[in-house]
């Protein structure tokens, strides 16, 4: 088996992250525009980021072991040319799109991803507000095909690292729109602001990592509208800055729902895997219900971006 080693790009990007956050902060302070910062919110985001790195160190061996096992099984080896790395990057970004989409539509995966959306601010510290429990979503399984068709695990992980480093800079209000050709193909601050929106219009949209083309291809693209400013956070916002509560709150919610009395086995399972907001008695709302209610209350938005199916 070929031994390959690539740098952990995320670790090497950390000084850059710090520098850019300070730059954005100073820019907002001087210009009085381009976003908002709040001290406790920023601290929570940064601690979530540090915890994410620690979780990677603690549990990274699980995914790595899984990929190594698959690499041992597959007879295919595409090598490590620049072209192979480039193709792997694109395919891994397709993988990212689907894992991210599962992250919003399957509660078990949402329980890990919800942390990232829990800030009511949108700045570069938000980019670092990352999960501590990603390993336990088992989404590593979605990467399995990439290993089995012959991409070395080191190349896949390197591509994934580059993908995440790319996504850092798009977490800002300081950049309005990029040139049209760029906006057409790439994920941008504008596209990703929509993704972080709790507005009914912007729910469950723009799942892209690097290439926005996947959202256009799979029907989940919603443009940022001038007339509807993005409101950031969760549909029902958290009331805590405690990173432990931020990290685990949805897992606690799943546990409470799954273990409540009087449910069938199927209902208990559905509380773990249906989209966020599903309930056995219809007492809560999934994003479809939120959108439908919003259109009923505001019929003039029917058929507009984000409400095409309502």
């Amino acid at each position: 088996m070929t031994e390959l080693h690539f740098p952990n790009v995320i670790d090497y990007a950390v000084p850059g992250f710090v520098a850019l956050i300070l730059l954005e902060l100073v820019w907002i302070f001087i210009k009085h525009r381009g976003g908002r910062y709040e001290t406790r919110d920023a601290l929570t985001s940064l601690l979530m980021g540090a915890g994410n790195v620690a979780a990677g160190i603690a549990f990274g061996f699980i995914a790595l072991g899984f990929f190594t096992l698959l690499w041992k099984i597959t007879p295919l080896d595409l090598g490590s040319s620049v072209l192979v790395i480039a193709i792997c990057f694109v395919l891994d970004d397709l993988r990212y799109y689907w894992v991210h989409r599962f992250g919003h539509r399957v509660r078990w995966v949402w329980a890990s991803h919800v942390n990232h959306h829990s800030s009511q601010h949108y700045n570069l510290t938000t980019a670092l507000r990352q999960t501590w429990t990603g390993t336990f979503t088992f989404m590593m399984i979605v990467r399995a095909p990439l290993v089995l068709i012959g991409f070395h695990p080191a190349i896949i992980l390197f591509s994934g690292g580059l993908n995440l480093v790319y996504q850092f800079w798009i977490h800002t209000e300081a950049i309005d729109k990029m040139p049209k050709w760029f906006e057409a193909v790439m994920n941008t601050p504008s596209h990703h602001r929509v993704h972080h929106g709790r507005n009914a219009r912007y729910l469950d949209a723009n799942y892209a990592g690097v290439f926005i083309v996947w959202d256009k291809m799979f029907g989940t693209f919603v443009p940022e509208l001038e007339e509807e400013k993005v409101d950031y956070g969760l549909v029902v916002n958290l009331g805590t800055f405690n990173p432990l509560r931020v990290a685990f709150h949805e897992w606690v919610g799943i546990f409470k729902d799954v273990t409540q009395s009087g449910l069938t086995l199927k209902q208990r399972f559905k509380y773990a895997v249906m989209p966020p907001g599903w309930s056995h008695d219809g007492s809560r709302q999934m994003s479809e219900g939120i959108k439908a209610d919003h259109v009923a209350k505001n019929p003039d938005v029917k058929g507009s971006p984000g409400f095409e199916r309502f």
Partner: protein
Amino acid sequence: MPLELLLPIVVIGITLIVLMTHLFGFSKKFDISSDAIARARWSREWEADKIGDVVLCENGTAALLDTDQGAGVLWAFGADTTTARLDHVDVARTKDGLKLKLHNFTAPVLHLTLSPTEADLWQQKIEGLSK
């Protein structure tokens, strides 16, 4: 990158960012200074609710709302606001006002700084509206 290098960068970086954010004045709390603001901020999270009476806290940090879905509290959460329905709440007096035990993992306890008169009014209303 070796951990011996990464760890100090992370610690110093976080400290610097948080310190500068505070020194730039970004620790200011949201001011719930009017009935209209309280209603707008509640509706932001609970669009379908019909809001009745609103009681504002004198120091602008919270509001008590009566809605067609039951009572709720809106409070300043850093530079923003957040909400909780009061369908399952325990209220206790403290020397500064009230402590609301919300039985919510994402907002377990809310400490309200209220004058004695306000605290009486809020406690009465919460216990009345939460039945």
